[in-house]
Structures are given as structure tokens and as C-alpha cells.
């Protein structure tokens, strides 16, 4: 086996579970690339793109938001608040959502409502960015 096991889970679904050759994640300190035999490692992950390469060589791009990665004994678990692969992102919906959240923030929301709106705004922004990234390639 040239790869290692990668699991990407969010509270609402298991987004990916399979063997991959590499995965690139955005942690608090920047992007890290995980290959087979990585040391045991734990770090928070930020909103941003996640790239993985399957054993077959197929590459996939996704957008992960807040969570953490736990690498232990050559298996990688990614816990994220949300995660979508590029093909799952609905551009129209993300754009609309971003506008809506912007309105809520501008209108002077407070407390939980504000932090929810901000988090959603950031996530939508990141999704659109990932879409742009995939169009470039």
C-alpha cells in the first residue's frame, strides 16, 4: 500500500473515507502536506482548500472549515465543521448566502446571531475561492 487511510467527517455526514497518497490541509500555521508515514500530529485546521490524491492518481479538491486533524499511526482523521468537494458546491447558493449573511452583519446583529453569520459568510467566501481555484487548474 503506497497510501494511508484518510477520513473526513463533519457532524452531519462522513464526507470521505478511503486510501489516499497525499492530502494537503490548511492549518493555523499554513498549509501542510501529509504523506505516508507522517509522524503523529494534531493541529487545528482553518477554513480553506483541502487537496487529496487518491491511490489511482485521481486528484480531488474540497473546502474544509474549522476543525482539527489528528494523525495517528499512519491514519489521518479530519474533523471539520463543514466539508464539500468542489463538485458539491452550489455556487449560486453560496453567493446568495454570502449576500444574506453580509446583510445580517451590516444590520447590526449581536451575540450568537452575529458569530453564526460571520462564520457562514467566511465559509461561503472560502467555497467560492475554492471554486475559482479549481477553474484555474
Amino acid at each position: 500500500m503506497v497510501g494511508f487511510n484518510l477520513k473526513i467527517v463533519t457532524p452531519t455526514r462522513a464526507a470521505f473515507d478511503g486510501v489516499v497518497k497525499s492530502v494537503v490541509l490548511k492549518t493555523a500555521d499554513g498549509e501542510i502536506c501529509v504523506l505516508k508515514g507522517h509522524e503523529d500530529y494534531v493541529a487545528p485546521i482553518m477554513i480553506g482548500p483541502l487537496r487529496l490524491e487518491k491511490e489511482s492518481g485521481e486528484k480531488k479538491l474540497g473546502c474544509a472549515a474549522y476543525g482539527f486533524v489528528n494523525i495517528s499511526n499512519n491514519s489521518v482523521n479530519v474533523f471539520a465543521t463543514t466539508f464539500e468537494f468542489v463538485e458539491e458546491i452550489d455556487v449560486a447558493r453560496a453567493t446568495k448566502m454570502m449576500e444574506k449573511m453580509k446583510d445580517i452583519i451590516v444590520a447590526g446583529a449581536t451575540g450568537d446571531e452575529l458569530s453564526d453569520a460571520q462564520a457562514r459568510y467566511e465559509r461561503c467566501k472560502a467555497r467560492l475561492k475554492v471554486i475559482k481555484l479549481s477553474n484555474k487548474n
Partner: protein
Amino acid sequence: MAGGDMSVIKRRIKSVKSTIKITNAMKLVSTSKLRRARLRFEQTKPFFGEIYKDMIELAARIDVHQLQYVHKGLSPKALYIVISGDRGLAGGFNLNLFKKVVENVDKENTIFSPIGNIAISFFNKNGFNVWGGVSNIGEKITPEKAYHMAARMLYNYNSNLFSEIYLAYTGFLSTLSQEPTIKKILPLDFGKSLRNKSGRLVYYEPNPDAVFQAIVPQYFAGMLYGGMVESFAAEQAARSNAMESATGNATRIIDDLTLKYNRARQFAITKEIIEIVSGAAS
């Protein structure tokens, strides 16, 4: 006399029949809710199971013991988050959980944070220390809401209002069996140590303190969300079962009563015939 008996039985049959209508309707409602709840539970399961497993493993391997989330704080109190249903008529669903919780706690040193109407009224009525209380949330819970709830509890944990957090919920084993479960959430000290066994060190980036500051709220919120989703599915399953057996019991009662009614009717007719015959004979 016999006529009066007959009308009483008739009335009872009628009332049991209307009970059947209610229990049957409730069964249908919870069965359809169960289908949705179960799907949601299946989707949450990987996250819920995996994050708890990983946290136990991380906690066992951690070699920095001054972290606030790892060692027990000064407060002697513990917080129990008890997730019940919002409605009754679900068999022993709510009571089994309360029984298990009450058996396991020291009443004086425990603060309860009930989730669900039944838990709120149970812990308030029985004189427990109650903090907060949320109701009617199980069906509409989102990870975001769970996150805010967890954040509030963590704030109090960090200000030493209590030094342990437990989650009590009902596990969904299958449609026919649900099990009250208590899981320890914080501190991350599960009494096992793998430190010497594995020998490998974990690299925390940027440092263990920052890592645990960032991941504990996520972990806690995930557990809370998972517990609520699982409890809701278990509640629907329990109610669906309870209502099914209630309908069955009621049907049996009707059969019984119908038999009695027919006997009473027959007895009345026989009696009348005897009266006529003996009247004619005299």
C-alpha cells in the same frame, strides 16, 4: 340489571376504541419521525464515534498535565447534561435515563443541565441543582446551536463553576432497543495511560495548549450534537414501540369486553325466555 351491565360494557368498548385511535395515530407519527431521525443519526454517527475515540486516545497520550482541559479543576462539582425527550408516552424512555443518572451522582455536588421538557420538570421537581435548561430542541438541533450551548458550558467550566462534565443521553442500538448512556466529556482524563506503552510522541502544532484550546470546543459541541441527535432517534423508536404495544393491549381489551358483552346479551335473552316460559306454565 343485565341491561345496565350491557350499557356499561358498551361504553367501555367505545372509550377503548377511541384510545386505540390516539395510540395508533401517535405510532404513525413517531414512525415517520423515526425514519428521518434515524437517517440523521446514521450521518452523525461517524463523527460522533470517531471524535470520542480520538479524544480518549489523545488524552491518554498527552504528557503535559497542566492543561486546564486535561486535569481536574478545583471545584468539587460536576455538571451533568441530561438529554431527555420533550414529551411523555414513550414507555420507560425518559425514566430509565433519569434512574441511571440519579444512581450515578452525588446529589449535593452535581449541577444538572437538562435538555428537553421532561428532564427540566423532573430535575426541578425533585430538588436537584439545575442550571439552565433547553426544551423543544431535539428535532431542530443544528451543529451551530450545539456549538453555542457547548461554548456557554465551557465558559463556566473554565471559570471553575464545576470541574467535570458528563453527558447523559439515550443510545440508539436498534429500533427495538435503546440504552441510557453516560459519557464523560471533560476533563480529558479517562483513567488510561498509553504514554509509556506506545513511546511515540505526538507533535502538536503550534503547541499543546493552543491545540486543545481550539479542538476541545469542537469536540464538546460534536458530542452534544451527536447526543441530541441519537437521543431523538431513540425517543421516536421508544415511542413507536410503546404505542404499538399500547394499541395491541387495547385491542385485546376490546376482544375481552366484546366477549363479556355477548355473554351478557345472551344471559339477558335466556332470562327473558325463562320468564316467559315460567309465566306460561303457571
